[in-house]
C-alpha cells in the first residue's frame, strides 16, 4: 500500500533513492541539494539501504566515482546543484559518452556569479548538449516519480545514458508538500534488477572503458549517442505507460493543461508551471481560452510532438528561467529551441519569450497573468510586440 507523507522535494528524492537502494552513491553536498544527501546519509547510517556511500572531496570526484562505479556494473545515483554541477563538468560529458546510466537529481539553482543559492535554470541549461537525458519536475511528487522512471529509462539497453531529474531549488526542494510514497516492494518490482551488459567486474570477460579514441572512431561513438537519444523518446513513453499502470500517475513528454481548446498558451517548466495552472483556471473563469504546456522531457527535445501540441494556437508565450547570453535576441534556451521546432514543423504562430525568476526572484500569479494577457494581445493582432521580455526586472 502507498501512503502519503509530508516531504520536501529534497526529501522526496532521497526517499526515492532509499527505495531504489542503489549499489553506489557518490555525492557532495551543495545548497539547495544538501538535504537529499543528508537524508540519504541517514538511511545509510540507519542500515535502511545496502548502498556503498562515498563521501568525496568535490563534485568532480563525485561524478568520477559515479562513472567508475557504473562501469563496474553498479546502479548509481547522485545529486547536485549549480556550481557543484559546474565543477562536475568534464565528467558529466564523460558519463554520457561512456554510456553510464547514472541517475542524478539536479536541484536547480542559479549558476554564479555573483554568488547566489536560489532557483533558476542556468545550471541545467548548461548541460543540455552533454548527452544526458533531462527531465523536469513540477513538485516533489514528480521528482520522486521521475527518479524511478529515470532508473528504467537510463538502464534500458537501447538507451544506456545518464538521466538528470530536475526540481526547483528551495521552491520545490525545501517546501514541504504531500507526496504519495509507494510501497517499497512495488518500487522494487518496477525498477527491477540492474543487469549490466558490460561490467568491469565481470572477470570472465575483461574489457576496457574509456580508451583513447581518435579521428578514426570517436565520431562513430558520437553517432551512437545520437541513436541512443533517438531511442530514448520511445523508451521514456513506454516506461511512463508502465509507471501509470502500476502507480496511476500519467507522465508523457510534456503535460498539456487545458490546452486542447486554448487559443493561447504559456510554456513553462518546473514549479512555475504549478503557479501558471492557477492563473489558467482564473482566466478560464473569465472565459478566456488560455492553456499551459509544461515540458517534462527537455532532452531528448520532442520537437515534433511539441509542434503538434501547440499547432492550433494563435499565440505562444515561453517562460525561461535562464538566459542564453548572446544567443538570438538574448532569449532563453527553451524559447530558442521551441521557436526553431515550431518553425521547422510548419507552425506559424506569434511567439515571444519571457525571462523570469533569475537568482530566485519570486514569480507571482499576477506576473504570469500579464504574460497571458500579452499573449492574448499577440493572438488578436498577430503581432509580436516584443520578442523577449525580462519580466519584473527593475529598470
Amino acid at each position: 500500500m502507498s501512503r502519503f507523507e509530508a516531504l520536501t522535494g529534497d526529501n522526496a528524492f532521497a526517499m526515492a533513492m532509499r527505495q531504489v537502494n542503489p549499489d553506489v552513491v557518490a555525492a557532495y553536498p551543495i545548497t539547495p541539494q544538501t538535504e537529499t544527501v543528508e537524508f540519504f546519509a541517514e538511511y545509510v547510517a540507519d542500515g535502511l539501504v545496502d548502498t556503498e556511500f562515498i563521501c568525496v572531496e568535490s563534485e568532480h570526484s563525485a561524478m568520477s566515482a559515479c562513472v567508475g562505479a557504473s562501469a563496474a556494473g553498479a546502479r548509481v545515483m547522485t545529486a547536485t546543484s549549480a556550481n557543484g554541477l559546474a565543477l562536475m563538468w568534464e565528467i558529466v560529458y564523460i558519463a554520457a559518452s561512456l554510456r553510464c546510466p547514472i541517475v542524478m537529481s539536479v536541484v536547480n539553482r542559479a549558476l554564479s556569479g555573483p554568488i547566489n543559492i536560489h532557483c533558476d535554470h542556468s545550471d541545467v541549461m548548461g548541460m543540455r548538449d552533454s548527452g544526458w537525458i533531462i527531465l523536469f519536475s513540477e513538485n516533489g511528487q514528480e521528482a520522486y516519480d521521475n527518479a524511478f522512471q529515470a532508473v528504467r529509462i537510463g538502464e534500458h539497453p537501447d538507451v544506456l545514458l545518464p538521466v538528470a531529474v530536475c526540481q526547483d531549488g528551495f521552491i520545490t526542494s525545501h517546501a514541504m508538500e504531500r507526496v504519495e510514497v509507494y510501497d517499497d516492494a512495488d518500487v522494487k518490482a518496477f525498477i527491477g534488477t540492474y543487469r549490466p551488459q558490460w561490467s568491469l567486474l565481470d572477470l570472465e570477460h575483461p574489457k576496457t572503458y574509456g580508451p583513447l579514441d581518435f579521428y578514426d572512431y570517436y565520431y562513430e561513438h558520437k553517432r551512437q549517442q545520437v541513436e541512443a537519444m533517438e531511442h530514448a523518446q520511445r523508451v521514456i513513453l513506454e516506461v511512463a505507460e508502465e509507471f501509470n499502470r502500476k502507480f496511476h500517475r500519467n507522465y508523457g513528454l510534456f503535460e498539456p493543461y487545458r490546452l486542447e481548446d486554448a487559443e493561447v498558451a504559456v510554456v513553462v517548466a518546473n514549479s512555475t508551471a504549478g503557479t501558471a495552472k492557477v492563473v489558467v483556471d482564473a482566466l478560464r473563469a473569465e472565459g478566456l481560452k488560455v492553456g499551459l504546456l509544461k515540458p517534462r522531457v527537455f532532452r531528448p527535445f520532442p520537437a515534433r510532438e511539441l509542434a503538434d501540441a501547440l499547432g492550433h494556437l494563435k499565440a505562444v508565450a515561453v517562460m525561461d528561467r535562464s538566459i542564453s547570453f548572446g544567443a538570438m535576441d538574448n532569449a532563453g534556451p527553451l524559447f530558442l529551441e521551441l521557436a526553431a521546432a515550431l518553425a521547422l514543423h510548419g507552425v506559424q504562430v506569434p511567439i515571444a519569450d519571457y525571462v523570469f525568476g533569475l537568482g530566485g526572484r519570486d514569480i507571482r500569479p499576477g506576473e504570469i497573468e500579464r504574460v497571458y494577457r500579452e499573449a492574448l494581445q499577440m493572438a488578436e493582432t498577430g503581432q509580436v510586440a516584443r520578442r523577449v521580455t525580462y519580466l519584473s526586472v527593475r529598470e
Partner: protein
Amino acid sequence: MAQLKGWKEIPIGGMILEAGSAMEYRTGGWRAFRPVFGEAACIHCMQCWLFCPDSSILVNGENEKMAGFNLDYCKGCGICASVCPVNAKVIREAGEALKRDDPRLCIRMVEEGKFKE
C-alpha cells in the same frame, strides 16, 4: 590500414571488449630513436625489463638473459637506456659527455634515420 568499421558494428562508448587487444596496435611506428643492445656490456640486471612501459624487452626463455627489443611495440622512449646501470657506469668512467648513441653504452639510442644493421 585495416578496414574501419561503421558505428553500428562497434561496441558503444568506445569500449574494448577483447582483453590484450593492445597487441594489435604496433606502436613501433611512433619511434624516432631506436634502442640498440650492446650485448657484450650487459650484466642482465633486468632493470630495463622492469621499467619498459611497453613490455618490449625480450628475454631468452632458456637462460633468462636480456635478448634485445621487440621493435613492433618499442616507442623509443629511452627509459631502458636511462635506467641501465651499465650505461651509468660507462658515462661516469668516461669522464666526458657521451652522445646517446656512443658505442660504449650497453643500451644506446640511435636516430631511426641513421640506424644501420
